[in-house]
């Protein structure tokens, strides 16, 4: 039987001389109908370029296929060499044979049209449906991707839907053409972990219903474990290892595959938490947050008074002692970042107290941001960047300050000549090290790490985490570690606080929260963590949405009641 897609010795290059700047250097694979291939690799490995070559979208990014063959079996049984096809044939291929979904659903959808109109358009172009037939088909497509109240949602604009909903709309548009092959390029990377689990479950179900093949591109080897039949590991444009899923995962042959499998933070359900530096009873906290409330006015209309408020953080209390890591976990919109910003004084508090220790530093709390590309001014060199906190504290740029810069640069593992270089000359991981060095310039007591390793490749992530743990021991730092990634949290946290819809729902030692979650939301969060070990497990599509945080004026939440679930492990009682 001929495979649906056969790629032979594919070479793709970029720039004026594509042969000299090859990004993909000879990749071959076959994909049978109904099979799923996962292409795994870190950024720059050529995995996306390989996938984009299959429907020749790579041409629009400036790439040229410099060698090899891509043979696609079309719907009518004819074979087509994609590398030699002309543009008009390619348009038909992209429309009806190959569907594609991208990482960021907001940028893939047109913001000025309703999602209904956009799905109908897909049906018009690919199936020739018009009028009420197209509308009916669009509604069915939304139901197919498990969007409740589909008739209502057709009239929504993309910005009115959540990220997970938008990605489902994208999938609905793609399946409108009933493609034989679906290419998914990091479709869940921008989504929260529970939403990611929902989308993955949906894709697995749709694949069975429609009998389509899938190519799934991801950096997260743990994520594809549950869905792929075959796996291909790429590094620097070459497929270093490919084969059946179980063979590759259980018995990796290539060093890089082994390295990736090792670097992926494995979630062990609380069995791999840190054993060092546990809390000393009676230690004086460096940060104490007591019943913190942050609300933002939500105005309706241009000149109207505030009709209500967004309850971003509602009644959060915790304390942080020296040398300890408290991880705040939750999904986007849960208020974890707002809590951190309130502690730094970046947002005003509506109510509650935040006490910060006034100890060894003029600025006891410092912060490292998520995106190391956005948090460094591109026009300042490293010396000016590192000097800024000191200058702000009234110090002068003298020999002593340079000595501290050199010390910290060496400590975070950057070369000595870094001082005169600019941020764009560093990689993402190096930039994040730079941000860490900058946060340590004033010898703070507390460092707030807001998704500080989320934007990094897995192997870089592991090394930065190790550095953070070393620095914590060396300088006696307390970390407030904000993250959505449970596997990362397990590696660094001593204690964990779970936030949901602006409120704390569970707090306790890392081991007890991860191994014995009590609150239903914590349980859901932990169940959604993808893991190689859990690849045989079947997920069901769960469409639970986070409730709206906009409350009418004068609304006060119910006072929370808590129960003890163990030593240093408290859970909020759930109202039924």
């Amino acid at each position: 039987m001929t495979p649906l897609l056969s790629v032979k010795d594919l070479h793709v290059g970029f720039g004026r001389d594509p042969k000299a700047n090859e990004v993909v250097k000879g990749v071959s694979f076959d994909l049978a109908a109904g099979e799923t291939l996962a292409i795994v690799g870190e950024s720059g490995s050529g995995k996306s370029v390989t996938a984009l070559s299959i429907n020749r979208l790579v041409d629009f990014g400036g790439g040229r296929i410099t060698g090899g063959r891509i043979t696609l079996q079309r719907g009518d049984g004819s074979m087509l060499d994609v590398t030699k096809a002309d543009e008009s044939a390619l348009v038909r291929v992209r429309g009806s044979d190959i569907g594609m979904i991208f990482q960021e659903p907001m940028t893939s959808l047109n913001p000025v049209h309703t999602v209904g109109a956009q799905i109908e358009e897909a049906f018009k172009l690919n199936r020739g449906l018009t009028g009420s037939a197209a509308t009916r088909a669009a509604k069915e497509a939304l139901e197919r991707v498990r969007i409740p109240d589909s008739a209502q949602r057709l009239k929504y604009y993309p910005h009115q839907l959540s990220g997970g909903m938008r990605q489902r709309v994208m999938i609905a548009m793609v399946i409108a053409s009933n493609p034989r092959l679906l290419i998914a390029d990091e479709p869940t990377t921008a989504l929260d972990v529970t939403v990611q689990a929902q989308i993955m479950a949906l894709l697995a179900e749709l694949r069975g219903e429609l009998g389509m093949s899938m190519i799934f591109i991801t950096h997260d080897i743990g994520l594809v474990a549950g869905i792929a039949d075959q796996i291909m590991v790429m590094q620097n444009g070459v497929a270093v290892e490919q084969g059946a899923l179980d063979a590759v995962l259980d018995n990796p042959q290539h060093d890089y595959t082994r390295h990736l499998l090792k670097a992926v933070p494995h979630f062990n359900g609380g069995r791999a938490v840190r054993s060092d530096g546990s809390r000393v009873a009676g230690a004086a906290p460096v940060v104490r947050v007591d019943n913190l409330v942050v609300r933002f006015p939500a105005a309706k209309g241009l000149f109207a008074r505030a009709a209500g408020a967004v309850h971003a953080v509602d009644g959060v209390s915790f304390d942080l002692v020296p040398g300890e890591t408290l991880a705040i976990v939750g999904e986007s919109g849960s208020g974890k970042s707002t809590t951190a910003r309130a502690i730094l004084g970046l947002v005003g508090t509506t109510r509650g107290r935040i006490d910060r220790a006034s100890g060894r530093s003029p600025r006891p709390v410092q912060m490292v941001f998520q995106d190391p590309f956005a948090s460094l001014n591109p026009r300042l060199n490293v010396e000016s960047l590192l000097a800024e906190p000191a200058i702000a504290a009234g110090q002068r740029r003298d020999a002593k300050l340079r000595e501290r810069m050199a010390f910290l640069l060496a400590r975070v593992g950057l070369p000595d000549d870094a001082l005169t270089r600019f941020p764009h000359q560093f990689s993402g991981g190096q930039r994040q090290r730079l941000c860490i060095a900058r946060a340590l310039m004033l010898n703070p007591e507390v460092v707030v790490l807001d998704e500080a390793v989320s934007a990094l490749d897995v192997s870089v992530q592991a090394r930065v985490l190790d550095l953070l743990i070393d620095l914590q021991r060396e300088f006696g730092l307390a970390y407030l570690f904000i993250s959505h990634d449970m596997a990362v949290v397990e590696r660094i946290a001593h204690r964990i606080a779970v936030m949901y819809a602006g409120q704390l729902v569970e707090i306790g030692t890392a081991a007890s929260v991860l191994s014995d979650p009590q609150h239903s939301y914590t349980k859901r969060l932990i169940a959604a963590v993808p893991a190689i070990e859990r690849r045989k497990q079947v997920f069901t599509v769960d469409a639970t949405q986070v409730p709206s945080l906009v409350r009418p004026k004068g609304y006060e939440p119910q006072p929370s009641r808590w129960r003890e679930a163990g030593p240093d492990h408290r859970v909020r009682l759930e109202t039924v």
Partner: protein
Amino acid sequence: MGLLRAVLRHPSGRIGAAIILLFLVVAALGAIGLTPHDPLKQYVIDRLKPPSGTYWFGTDLLGRDTFSRLMLGIGESFLVAFASVAVAATAGTVIGLFAAWWGHLWDGILMRIMDVLLAFPAILLALLIVAIEGPGVATSITAIGIVYTPIFARVVRAPALALKGREFVEAARTFGSSQPYILSRHLLLNLVAPLTVQITLALAWALLTESGLSFLGLGTQPPAPSLGVMLAESKSMMTRAPWLMVFPGLTIMLAILGFNLFGDALRDILDPRTQERPA
């Protein structure tokens, strides 16, 4: 200087720099009196002579040498253009920065004033200001400066607003950096690229507006020549002595081209992300 050397390595920067340098040299020579003929002296016998070995660009109705007058006129027009753009860029940048930084009410007030100014056609507003203040070089500078202030305010405000929300500004706040430090280091420094582009464009416009004002008799006053004055004097003799119009006109065109090429090169060089691969 490293920056100048980088501009000269840039292909279009080299051409732009050459044109601007040529005009600056010509203007300087004119200013210290090194012209082939006395620009104000009337050679009555040689009236309306076409370009020749003696009079390179010909003579006008009063028998004055066009080339010598052009040398003086370039200096006059460039002076007004540079001075007025300096006024506009300074005022516009300050207004735009503060509108973005303070936000809310101040943003509204400052930018609505800028919108009102922007609603008038440039030459009409300049005419209005000159009509109030009386003609002359100083008033043209003020008038053209005011006319182009709103454009700078807008060009600065939009990216400043975006920069204000960037993480590195937020990071600066967590260090407790002072407002002047954030405004100068994090905002202004990142605005260098759009500002240089705008300054070169504005130099070209200001040159045109100055020519327009002088053409209408409200800028540089005759007998002192400026490019606009020379164009105005040529208009009645357009068919008999086309060289009187062609040379000042070509000069204006070439100067604008020079500024634009130079500005493009500067933008490529000042942006550190494009440093390694000049276009």
